[in-house]
């Protein structure tokens, strides 16, 4: 390892990094703006200047930009030399010439990297006498505010948005001292990762719009380590609260998963917590849609009575924690427990588990490993809509070819502009097989649009051509041949190929083909990986549960009267099975108890509703797509009757006099979960409540400058409220204690002296871009025995697979396909106000021939059952099929397998065109 000397002190540094990276890795305070660990160096801001000495005898030194200089062995530099300090102060003085003095009213104030760096360099008084430049701001949509006057022209926004995330509609305009960063015209930022601009911008140009509407200083936010509930990837987040309102979500660095960025659904979707649709009180239904509040003690008595009478069926949920599901399963018994997945989904998740279990160790990639793939095949999953952060990781994987070229040309890999300029459009191959065009097609070497059955056949043929162990597909359409050939060529040439698939298309064959391709690729030289996307935040966790009942069996049990009581945990059953089956079960059940956080049709049909805590109001565990168990922590104590699902269930059991659920704290439930072998290990996902920092304290949720504690509720009472005591977790509702490198799972926010912004994350990393000093959060479960992994096992079930020709239309009607939609399909985030603004109108995609047959044109309406959907026309979709954004408000929550009738909706009125937005 190279050694460098900084101000006379010797430091060991990583190979192949630049001096800024090296200095920050050792915790040295060196100001910078344009550099970002994920974006590399470009040398635009000139802020990180240090004095570099030629050799031991050089005492003068020469100003050098640390971010642009390799940290080679023997390098000697000074950060503190007067000349370097003065130059850095000058850079700030130049940047501040035009920066407005609006810190007191700027949303970024108190966590502004520009403020931090200004203070660090010591620039305090203004000598520039000219006018400040001013700009008109743009409307950029419901997520992001634009305040260009604050811009210091670091270029980070466009480098993230365009270079890193593949956006095209945010650009650098103008030149000289008149640089403008925005869109060609006002309009919604198109990238699904635009929200990261909030954290990428070192000052207040791009700010979080929903947060800005009612912003709180970072020092006044109460925060806890949380998890995104938007998909199965398990991105780590900081969730922050004040006044009982979830204020915002920020990225929480996890070295293996999301690192520095999350998607907009994750950032802006959590606002469902503040939704007017929240269930906040216990209710007893007195009439259709009419509930009467109940005292908790009464409600628990009622519930205990309901359960006591006969057989009770419990339906869990892939969006509820492991603990909640475990509590329900314990309450009703494994024989009466359904994991809450629909029949098809449950079968696919079981298959996913089976396929994963056959993989050797290391074959299921972390998101960071996805970024290292040198060839990617995406088989039938539109990941930008079902696992968005994964799409961002794949955008980085395409750069591996350019890194290889840069390495050959002697260009340091962190030299971002150099690498991009040299490699130009050279990409590692990405092949996208999907039902419709996807948001990754722009980087795809080749695409194939076909129905899921045909895509599965194409996958099967790829497996066959890679390995003779797999049978050829004889009914593959000619149109797929070119894609198959390109995929085989690209994958066979790769050393770390990645196959991505998922369950959203509802097609077993996709998963089987993906697994076969991976098995067919494996060799001494080739380490293929398989990634299967689930649908929800705990799809993988709940699929591990010992659940005897399939969804339709559970509903049948209730409808047939074999069970009289139904308990539904955080699940809208209409999204899991045919509406008639669900409605029948809800109607026939003597008692329906629902525990949920948001009103939904299932809850409305309940006799008794308990308000369940959301991810930010409870502590629990979710299991992501790689079977990584991760803990989320209660951020704040919710108002009203809200309690975590497991606690309601334990309370009911307690009223019943049962002793096996006498859990007092979440740790008790976690320990109990360990008894389920598949969940074994989840206690290690995070430290127990008894954990104390080396100073013997709990980790504070509040920063040490948290203000207003005694006055916050002065409008309600003049008495200072008692600080809540958190007995459940190692976190405290307090500003006492220090947040210095706690275990990674307990990191409630990042802050370090002099570093108020999110850039302080480097103070918590072992080295820049490395693991957290306190250890990385989460624990990989080993739920499945992969000792008998047979690499050549054939998972194709050709007998079961529907021949692809059956996808073609027939006179009997249309077969419906699900098209997941980033903003809308996901149940919870669809209740967030900003997400709602981005939702398309409920739609249905038809082939032009079918549209002609139905006598509709784009923009007109089509009726399916009770749903009226706006017609989109897309030639990529097969005749006889129609695609619907299932689960989006206004669209059907569930699709039948058989053919359905569609007809033109003559009453359809197109939604109004919005001509102005605030």
């Amino acid at each position: 390892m190279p050694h460098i000397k900084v101000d006379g002190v010797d430091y060991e540094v990583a190979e192949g990094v630049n001096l800024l990276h090296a200095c920050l890795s050792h915790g040295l305070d060196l100001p910078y703006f344009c550099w970002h660990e994920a974006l590399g160096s470009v040398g635009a801001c000139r802020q990180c200047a240090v004095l570099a000495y030629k050799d031991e005898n050089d005492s003068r030194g020469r100003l050098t930009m640390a971010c642009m200089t390799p940290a080679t062995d023997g390098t000697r530099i000074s950060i503190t030399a007067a000349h370097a300090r003065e130059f850095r102060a000058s850079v700030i003085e130049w940047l501040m010439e035009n920066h407005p003095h609006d810190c007191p009213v700027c949303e970024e104030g108190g966590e502004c990297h520009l403020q931090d760096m200004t203070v660090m360099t010591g620039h305090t008084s203004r000598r520039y006498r000219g006018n400040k430049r001013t700009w008109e701001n743009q409307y950029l949509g419901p997520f992001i505010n634009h305040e260009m006057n604050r811009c210091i022209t670091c270029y980070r926004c466009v480098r993230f948005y365009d270079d890193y995330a593949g956006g095209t509609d945010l650009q650098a305009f103008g030149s000289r001292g008149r640089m403008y960063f925005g869109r060609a015209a006002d309009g919604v930022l198109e990238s699904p990762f635009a929200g990261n601009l909030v954290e990428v911008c070192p000052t207040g140009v791009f700010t979080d719009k929903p947060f800005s509407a009612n912003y709180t200083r970072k020092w006044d936010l109460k925060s806890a380590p949380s998890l995104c509930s938007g998909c199965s990837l398990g991105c780590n987040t900081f969730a922050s609260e004040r006044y009982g309102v979830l204020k915002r979500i920020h990225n929480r660095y996890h070295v293996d998963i999301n690192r520095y960025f999350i998607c907009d659904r994750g950032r802006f979707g959590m606002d469902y917590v503040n939704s007017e649709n929240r269930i906040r009180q216990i209710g007893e239904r007195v009439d259709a849609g009419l509930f009467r509040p109940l005292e908790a003690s009464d409600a628990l008595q009622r519930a205990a009575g309901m359960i006591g009478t006969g057989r009770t069926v419990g339906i869990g949920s892939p969006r509820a924690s492991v603990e909640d599901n475990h509590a329900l399963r314990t309450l009703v018994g494994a024989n009466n427990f359904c994991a809450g997945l629909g029949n098809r989904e449950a079968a696919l998740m079981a298959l996913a588990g089976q396929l994963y279990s056959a993989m050797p160790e290391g074959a299921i990639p972390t998101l960071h490993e996805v970024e290292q793939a040198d060839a990617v095949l995406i088989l039938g999953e539109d990941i930008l809509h079902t696992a968005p952060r994964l799409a961002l990781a794949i955008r980085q994987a395409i750069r591996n070819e350019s890194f290889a070229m840069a390495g050959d040309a002697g260009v340091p890999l962190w030299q971002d502009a150099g690498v991009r300029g040299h490699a130009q459009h050279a990409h590692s191959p990405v092949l996208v097989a999907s039902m419709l065009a996807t948001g990754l097609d722009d980087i795809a070497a080749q695409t194939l649009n076909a129905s899921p059955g045909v895509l599965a056949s194409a996958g099967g043929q790829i497996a066959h051509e890679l390995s003779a162990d797999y049978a050829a597909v004889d009914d593959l359409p000619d149109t797929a041949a070119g894609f198959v050939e390109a995929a085989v060529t690209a994958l066979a040439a790769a050393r770390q190929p990645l196959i991505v698939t998922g369950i959203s298309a509802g097609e077993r064959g996709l998963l089987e083909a993906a697994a076969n391709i991976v098995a067919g690729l494996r060799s001494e030289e080739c380490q293929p990986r398989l990634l299967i996307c689930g649908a929800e935040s705990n799809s993988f966790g709940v699929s591990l549960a010992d659940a005897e009942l399939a969804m339709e069996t559970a509903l049948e049990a209730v409808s047939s009267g074999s069970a009289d009581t139904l308990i539904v945990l955080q699940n809208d059953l209409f999204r899991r099975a045919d509406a008639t089956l669900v409605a029948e079960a809800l109607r026939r059940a003597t008692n329906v108890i629902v525990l949920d956080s948001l009103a939904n049709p299932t809850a409305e049909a309940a006799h008794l509703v308990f308000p369940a805590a959301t991810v930010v109001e409870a502590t629990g565990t979710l299991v992501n797509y790689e079977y990584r168990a991760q803990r989320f922590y209660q951020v704040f104590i919710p108002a009203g009757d809200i309690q975590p699902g497991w606690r309601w269930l334990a309370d009911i059991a307690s009223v019943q006099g049962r002793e096996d659920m006498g859990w007092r704290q979440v740790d008790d439930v976690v320990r109990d979960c360990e008894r389920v072998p598949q969940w074994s290990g989840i206690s290690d996902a995070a430290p127990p409540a008894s954990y104390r920092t080396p100073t013997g304290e709990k980790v504070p949720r509040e920063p040490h400058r948290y203000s207003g504690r005694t006055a916050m509720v002065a409008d309600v009472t003049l008495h200072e409220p008692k600080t809540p005591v958190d007995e459940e977790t190692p976190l405290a509702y307090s500003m006492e204690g220090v947040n210095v490198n706690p275990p990674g799972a307990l990191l409630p926010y990042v802050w370090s002296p002099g570093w108020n912004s999110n850039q302080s994350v480097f103070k918590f990393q072992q080295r820049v871009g490395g693991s957290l000093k306190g250890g990385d959060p989460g624990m990989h479960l080993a739920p499945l025995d992969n000792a008998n992994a047979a690499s050549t096992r054939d998972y194709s079930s050709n007998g079961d697979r529907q021949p692809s020709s059956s996808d073609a239309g027939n006179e009997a009607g249309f077969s419906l396909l699900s098209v997941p939609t980033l903003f809308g399909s996901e149940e919870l985030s669809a209740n967030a106000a900003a997400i709602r603004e981005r939702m398309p109108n409920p739609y249905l995609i038809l082939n032009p021939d079918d549209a002609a047959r139905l006598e509709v044109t784009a923009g007109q309406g089509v009726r399916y059952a009770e749903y009226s959907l706006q017609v989109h026309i897309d030639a990529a979709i097969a005749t006889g099929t129609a695609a619907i954004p299932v689960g989006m408000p206004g669209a059907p929550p569930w699709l039948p397998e058989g053919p359905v009738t569609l007809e033109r909706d003559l009453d359809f009125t197109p939604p109004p065109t919005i001509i102005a937005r605030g």
Partner: protein
Amino acid sequence: MEIQTGQETKPLTQRIIDAGGLVNLATYEAAGGYAAARQAITEMTPAEVRDLVKEANLRGRGGAGFPTGVKWGFVPPPEKRSLGHVYLVCNADEMEPGTFKDRYLMEYDPHLLIEGMIIAARAIGADVAYVFLRGEYYEAYRQLTQAIADATRLGYLGERLFDTDFKLHLSIHRSGGRYICGEETALLNALEGKRAQPRTKPPFPPASGAWGRPTIVNNVETLCNVPGILRNGADWYQLLGSGEDAGTKLYGVSGRVNKPGLWELPIGTTIRELIEVHAGGMKSGYTLRGILPGGASTDFLTTEHLDLKMDYGTIQAAGSRMGTGTMILMDDSVCPVAMARNLQHFFAQESCGFCTPCREGLPWLEQLLADIDAGRGKPGDLELLDKNSAFIGAPGNTFCLHATGAIEPLASALKYFREDFEAHIEQGRCPYAPQHIDKQAVEA
């Protein structure tokens, strides 16, 4: 050794002088045109061409003076690069204030440039070449377009040149118009259709330039020197120079001289000879005070430097740069503060906007100078100018050398004409204002 009688002494301009204007294809061929290109392609290996130019000691005429043959040698040999194009780019984005030498060559002898490019392409193995032409140079565009068409028609450009496998496709790219495009990597970005911002080095263009491929960027005048070297040899070229450097140079003088203009002279001609002999001396009533020897982005020299030879080493040793060799003179009627302000206005306006010192620092300097010029200067302003100039101008403190060039005339003005700056601040007015007006009236 001396130049033999009958040998060329003005290889760049003699044909233009003889023709009394435009040298068309027939005239160019009649004067031996394209023989050098034929020789380079049919009789010489690329290495021999490079070695000859290296031996001749041709140095880049765009201003930096880098040895051309050495630069050509930086292109990785075919066995060390992947398959694909090698590009030759002629930097014809002549936007240096006071400079008009390349324009002259392109407007009057476009085939000389084309032949130079054919030979250069041979030397580096380029198959595609571009002339990156200043957008305002419409006449040069017209003449070059005609010349390229003529040369293509006769088989000097295109496939199978001189019945060999060698091919060269030459196109003109008219610049959208930014001074920074003269910086070779900004030029390449602009050529690719990107923002005209300079690039990080490494990679250097010879290894990775246009579209990531090996690329050589040469100035117009540099390329125009090449055919002569092939025709007459390295020794002849060395003898043409009158000092350390070799060859001839297009020198220009602008300012209040009797005969402002452009001349091809042995490189190393003294400043005094340029001003007093070729430019006819200062206009009567005006006294020379300052000289920007090689364009706006070079340090001021003064009358004490008149006897210096205009070559790369001599001018550099005096604290300035020969640059483009086309000097701007400042006489005693010109307010140095106003001139510095005017120059800073230009450089601030032409900053690409990428790095902080240039983007934000130059406008501040301009504003300080405007204040001083208008009598609003304050004590301490000169120290601010000094400190900022030092930080902005030091090579390496900014991303490219644009700001370094911008600071050269300012820092040297502050050194040589400091009393003028001080007088502005002390008097709260421009001391030149009345005198300036008087002289203007006399002139009129």
